[in-house]
């Protein structure tokens, strides 16, 4: 599926992820958690390459976190079993563990899709205005780190062909050859740095008044989505402030009930907010289906 959401303005992408992650980390009410787990996975699964592998890993992580929590947290009323000289394994701690685990995998999953959506240049665009010098530095780092990696490979294989491999010989020889590779890399990088500096200065770097160019444009669809997101965010905050997401697990499970209207309103706002990327993508897909069928 084409990722339409990532084609929106970087600020929209960033605002969504800030919202999703902050709420994901503080809202512990099961209804809210259910929303975030389901929608985080729904979006990531549409983007990911290795879906089943990822799901399996997350399931394992969930189980491990959920079931080990009661071993460290002993408060709670309903005791499931007692082990090792009277330590208790309680239902409340188990529930709390499941909540923590759900939170954990949600945030990880949001991060996973964040890495796909927020590419390095979008990140820089968002923060570049605050710190222009740092943002240029980061751009260069993004370029140099992979370049250094490649060069290390090149030096190592060049040296292997003259019998100076880091793979065989005594430990001392290996270390020596490894050091030689690093020192060669250092000279190479230094030499490259001088050329890069020349190239920058020859293109007017340091002549003052640097601006920052970007390929992103703020369109009316971005304005619309921003408005919707702000309304939802304030809605969620309002409901939470009114106690709609109250949840305590130990020593006694106390939850804001479904009868509380702030709870169900909050869940609806939250659900709409988190489904934005998925809905945007699906809507685009539907639009094309309709356009195609008209031809």
């Amino acid at each position, binding site marked *: 599926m084409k990722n339409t959401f990532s084609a929106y303005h970087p600020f929209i992408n960033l605002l969504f992820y800030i919202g999703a992650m902050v709420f994901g980390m503080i809202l512990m009410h099961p209804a809210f958690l259910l929303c975030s787990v389901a929608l985080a996975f729904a979006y990531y699964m549409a983007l990911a390459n290795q879906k089943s592998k990822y799901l399996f890993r997350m399931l394992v992580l969930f189980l491990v976190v959920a079931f080990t929590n009661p071993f460290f947290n002993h408060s709670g009323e309903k005791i499931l079993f007692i082990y090792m000289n009277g330590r208790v394994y309680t239902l409340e701690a188990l529930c709390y563990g499941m909540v923590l685990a759900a939170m954990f995998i949600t945030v990880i999953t949001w991060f996973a899709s964040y890495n796909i959506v927020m590419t*390095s*240049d979008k990140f820089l665009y968002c923060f570049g205005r605050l710190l222009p010098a740092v943002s240029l530095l980061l*751009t*260069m780092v*993004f*370029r140099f780190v*992979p*370049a250094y990696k*490649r*060069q290390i490979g*090149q*030096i190592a*294989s*060049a*040296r*292997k*062909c*003259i*019998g*100076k*491999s880091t*793979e*065989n*010989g005594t430990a001392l020889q290996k270390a020596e050859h490894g050091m*030689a*590779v690093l*020192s*060669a890399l250092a*000279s*190479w990088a230094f*030499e*490259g740095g001088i*050329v*890069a500096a*020349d*190239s*920058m*200065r*020859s*293109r*007017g*770097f*340091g*002549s*003052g*008044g*640097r*601006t*920052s*160019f*970007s*390929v992103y444009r703020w369109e009316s669809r971005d304005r619309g989505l921003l408005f919707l997101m702000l309304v939802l965010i304030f809605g969620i905050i309002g409901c939470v402030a009114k106690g709609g997401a109250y949840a305590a697990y130990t020593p006694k499970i106390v939850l804001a009930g479904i009868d509380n209207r702030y709870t169900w309103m909050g869940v609806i706002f939250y659900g709409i907010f988190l489904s934005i990327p998925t809905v945007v993508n699906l809507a685009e897909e539907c639009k094309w289906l309709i356009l195609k069928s008209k031809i």
Partner: protein
Amino acid sequence: MAHFEIKDLGFEYPTSMGKPTLEGINLTIERGEYVTFCGRSGSGKTTLLRHLKSVLAPHGKLSGEILFSGKPLEDASLREQSFKIGYVMQNPDNQIVTDKVWHELAFGLESLGYDQKTIRLRVAEMASYFGIQGWFYKDVAELSGGQKQLLNLASIMAMQPEVLILDEPTSQLDPIAAADFLNTVKKINRELRTTIIITEHRLEDIFYASDKVVVLEEGRIIAADNPRKVGEFLKDEKHFMFAAMPTPVQVYYGVPNEEICPLTVREGGEWLDKIFVEKEVKVSAVDEANAFCEEDIAQPAVELKEVWFRYEKNAPDILKGVSLKVPKAELFAVVGGNGTGKSTMLKSICGICRGYRGKVWINGKRLEKYKAAELFYENLAMLPQDPQSLFVKKTVKEDLQEMLARKEQDRAEEITKVAEICEITHLLERHPYDLSGGEQQRVALAKVLLTKPKILLLDEPTKGIDNFFKLKFAEILDKLKKQGITIIMVSHDVEFCAKYADTVSMFFDGGIITTNTPHKFFSKNSFYTTAANRMSRHIFENAITNEDVIYLCQKNL
């Protein structure tokens, strides 16, 4: 008013101890002129070019003055020089600052503080003019060398400079990318009237287009005139730079005649027509060796049989069943386009890339049977494409010493011997990075030779080397061959292979297409062949080098 006026310029590096790098340079460059500087490495070309842009000028003792549009150059501010004088350097990689193509195009304009709208327009203009739209959003790391250098040019042109200075811009590119790049430069000169100041070894592609050719020797201008006059001057002086002239010029001066000097292959062909008009061609072919026959090789130094290789399980195959037999003590050249897998084949011979199918024999023994220590000592060695990746020490001498095991320090005389073979004795105390491309190549070769190889693999050994150094390099290879060393060379350099190789193979689409002696090989091709052959093929049967053409002309006239 002249665009650049250099008056009695002299320059001395602080470390050069009284020996000036530039001396008495007087030169006028008009607006819109295409000026080519030539001279062997170390003649002061780069130093002179750098002085034409204050921010790049090296530190040292400067005398004389440079006027830019009638005013002293140093009076022009950093800002003014930044957008009026563009400077493209040799290394395509290191000049790039940012990680995205679009960002690189905008970099100069950002530095000068243009607003978003202006930058957007300029960037769009540049991307369209240079045909960059297709890779506008790419990471720079994904680009080929040719694309990178084109990007460097475009990102400078985005600032709309009046002068474009290019310091050996194509030395790291393959011939096709280089020709493309130089054509773009020519187009800029013709269509935008941008003044071009360029240095190059590959004079074939720019000599005829130049308005003025300036020859530098030891920091002095010895000739500055139009291309034909410079050719004549160098011939009369019997100057070594004559070896750098394009093929038609060299052939022209090898044959006594009264016509005008040809500069391109087309003119060369017409010139041959003229001198052979109403004359019978008695001798139409040079003597040549017997055709290459793979079955005749009894004990090949290297043999590959149907080797298949790919980098990853799901990646496309790079080698698709390469079979090859290399006879002992020969210079075996493999030519072919970029990205066909030539270099990968070399890597599969020395075991860096292990094929997933097929077999490799080195001196009759399976590659897998060798231990690494055995394989790379007194047996097989490879000179990588980038000689710099072999340098790890502060001086050339230390670098060479690294090759001797600790207890063998007494083998110092071996270093002396190898240094003599490679003609680098005078460079032993220098830092390897301070040497010119040709010198680095020879130092790297010396280092490789200290493993005493019987089989030497060379990956693009003539890349970035001027013709003068190529002659020397060929002499060194010849010496090694006489010692019984087998040399396998992968190259784009058709002229070099035609002149010096014993056998030439064509590599295409992951396999060897054909193998033959240079004469048989190149005289059969019509595109992938030498300039001498293209120029003379309608008259002579198998002339592939300048010497062949000159010899046949002399025989028939």
